[in-house]
């Protein structure tokens, strides 16, 4: 594996979850540890701003940051989880 792991284990786990869902991760920065890129940033996608999400080196609360990162990945409009909820109209 080429990339350097995040020092906080819960955040590293959230990043791996993102990678499992096809997100790519780029390391770099100081306050920022790096950023993650949605695999499906196209016009069908509704997550918009969070298609590129910054990852902090030392967030105020690592558990919260890990949860925020997972939420972005799981709410991505092309994520399989959404497909389990067909439109009700």
């Amino acid at each position: 594996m080429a990339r350097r792991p995040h020092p906080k284990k819960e955040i590293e786990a959230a990043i791996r979850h993102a990678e499992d869902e096809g997100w790519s991760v780029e390391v770099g920065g100081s306050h920022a540890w790096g950023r993650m890129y949605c695999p499906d940033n196209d016009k069908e996608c509704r997550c918009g701003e969070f298609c590129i999400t910054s990852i902090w080196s030392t967030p105020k609360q690592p558990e919260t940051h890990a949860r925020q990162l997972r939420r972005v990945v799981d709410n991505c409009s092309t994520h399989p989880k959404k497909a389990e909820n067909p439109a009700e109209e």
Partner: protein
Amino acid sequence: MEYHFTLTYQLTPADSNSQELVERLGEAGCTDALVGIGLAGRLALEFDREAERAETAVLSAMADVQRAVPTARLIEVAPDLVGLTDVASLVNVTRQNMRKLMVAHQESFPIPVHGGSATLWHLEDLLTWMQARTGYHVAADVLEVAQTARRVNVQKEWQRVSDTPSRELLALAR
């Protein structure tokens, strides 16, 4: 209490270097926010901020962003303007259920802010209504954030309109 809300901003071309922008936000204490930089010219921050009151959380977050990116202009504080799908997911009911409520209580259901191909309400109105009329449990922190978000958004719009409304306008636009 930890308050959950999102701030979105419009950026000027001078702030197009997102890497530098994120560093400045980190310096200003926004490390309790998830920073989204996926849209050109836009900045989104999803905060989980610890504070005594929602207003303290939202205003301190806005102050942090202003310190880091003074030229950024606030688009909105969310969640405030919502459709039925949004509110359904916030209070954990299905959209279908929400629609049924609306149809069954036409006379008391909150008036929307915008009615078009997509109808929008202030979340505060929907939550207050649901709590009073249907016995749905609405989390206190969610309601508090919705109230604060609305106040900030309306105030922002009001400042951009700026002139004093006529007596006639005040009497008719109720």
